[in-house]
C-alpha cells in the first residue's frame, strides 16, 4: 500500500502525545522546554502533510512563522531559567509558582 497523508498524521499525533506527556510528568523545566519544541515539530509535520496533500504551500509558510515564534519564546524562557539559576533557585516547575522573583 502506498504512502498517504494519514500515515504522516498518525506519526505527528504520536509525537504530539509524547511531547504532551513529557510536559505533564517531568518537573525539570528544561525538559519541559524540549517537550514543547517536540509538540511544535509534531504540529509542523501535520501542517506540511496537509500542504502536500492540498498542493498549496501555505501550510509550509505557516510552519515557518510558527518556527520563528517558537524560537523567540524559547529564547526568553531560557533567559528566565538562567536568571533563576543565578539566584540559586533550581529550574523546577513546582517551585516557580509566583511571578515574583
Amino acid at each position, binding site marked *: 500500500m502506498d504512502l498517504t497523508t494519514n500515515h504522516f498524521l498518525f506519526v505527528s499525533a504520536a509525537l504530539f502525545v509524547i511531547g504532551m506527556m513529557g510536559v505533564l510528568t517531568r518537573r525539570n523545566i528544561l525538559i519541559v522546554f524540549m517537550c514543547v519544541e517536540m509538540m511544535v515539530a509534531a504540529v509542523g509535520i501535520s501542517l506540511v502533510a496537509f500542504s502536500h496533500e492540498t498542493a498549496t504551500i501555505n501550510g509550509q509558510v505557516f510552519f515557518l512563522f510558527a518556527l520563528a515564534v517558537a524560537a523567540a519564546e524559547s529564547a526568553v524562557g531560557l533567559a528566565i531559567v538562567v536568571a533563576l*539559576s*543565578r*539566584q*540559586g533557585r533550581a529550574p523546577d516547575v513546582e517551585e516557580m509558582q509566583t511571578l515574583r522573583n
Partner: protein
Amino acid sequence: MEPTKTEFNVMESTQTDYSGTLMVEDEHELASGERVMTLNMGPQHPSTHGVMRVLLKLDGETVIECDPMIGYLHRGTEKLSETKRYAQIVPWTDRLDYTAAPQNNLGYVLAVEKLLGLNVPERAQYWRVIMVELSRLASHLVWLGTHALDIGALSMSLYTFREREMIMDIFETFCGARLTTNMMEIGGFSRPLPDTLIEQIRNFLRVFPNRITEYTDLLTANPIWLARTKGVGVITPEAATSYSLTGACLRGSGINYDIRKADPYLVYDQLDFEVPLGQFGDVFDRYLVRVEEMRQAHKIITQALNYIEHDDRPMMAYESAYVMPPHMGTMTTAEDMQRHFVWVIKGFSAPIGEVYHAIEHGKGEFGIHIVSDGGSMPYRMRIRTPDYVNLGVLPHMAQGAMLADMVALIGTIDIVLGSVDR
C-alpha cells in the same frame, strides 16, 4: 571594596594594596550564584617559561587574585657558594639566567674585582662589553620569540631563534660553550682570542639590523598584536618604582634608570648609546623598549669592535696578586710556578669588607652583594636577580586582567625561572 575595572585594567580603587595578596577581603562579597574558580596554571605549563605555578582566583573570565608559587628550581646557589672559592663560583652563575650566562658571569666577576680593588686592562673591558651586549641580544631574542609564541604568532620564535643561533656560534668560538659560557675570569681573559671571532661578529653585525625590522614589520603594525598588547598589564611609574622593578619593566613606564648610564661600569661611559623609555607602561611599551634596546646593543657592539679590533695589549691583570700567573711564566720562572701552586690549592684571601655591585642585565638590575671575612671563600654572597623582583609585580598587574592575558603578562616581565629561584 569592589575592584572596578577601567578599560585598561589600571586599578581605579585607591586603596589597592600592591602587596602579594589582594586588598579585597577573601570573602569577596560577590552576588550569589556566580562561582569563583580557583585555577592552577600548573608547574608544567607551556607559557610559564620554566617551572612556575600560578594560583589564580577567577570570577568568570577576569582574574581576581593571582599568586605565583616559585621555588621548583631552587638549587641553593647562595648556600653552596659559601663553601666555594671565589674563582669556583663563576660556573654557578651561568646556571642562574641560562639565556644570558655572560651577563651573570660579568655581574659576579665585577663584584669580586670591586672587593679586591682590582683594575682590569682596557682591552679586556672592551671585550667584556662586546660579549655582554651579544648576550643581551640573545636573551632579548629568546624573550621576543617566546612572548610572540604565547600570544599566538607561531613563526616569530623561529625567526628570532635563527638569529640567536648566530650569537651562540660566536660564544662557541669565543669560549667553547653555547649556553653555560663561564667565560669571565677575575682579572680579565687569560686565553688569547680565536682568530675567526672578529669576522664572525662582523657577519652578525652586518645582517642583524634588517632582521630586527623583519620582526617589527611582522608585529608592530599587526592589529591583532596591538589588540592583545595595548592597554594590557599597565604598570604606572609610581607602582614600578615602589615594586623595585628594573630593566625594561621600569623603563617601559617611563623612569630613566639604566645602570650603564646611571652608575657606569666597564667602559660604558666612553661608548655612545641611548636609553629607550616607554610612555604608558603597558605590554606594548615594554615590547617597543626591548626592541629598541636590541638596536642600541647593536650600536654598542659596532663601536666597541671598531675601537678594539686591532688592539693586542694584554688582556689579564697579571701584576695583581689575586690573579693566576700567565701560563708561560708558570712553566719557566720559579716564583710564577709557586704563585700558581698557592692560587690553585688555597686560592687568594680577599680583604675583609662588604661590597654590592649591580650591572644592567638584559632583564634588569643584576646585583651581587658579597660579605667577606678575609678568607678565600665569601662569607655570604647574595644574588639580587632582576626576574625575582620583577615577578613580584605579577599579582598587582594581573588584577582585573583577562585569563587569556596571563600568558602575555608573564611574557612581558621576561622571567627565566633559573634566576627567579636561584
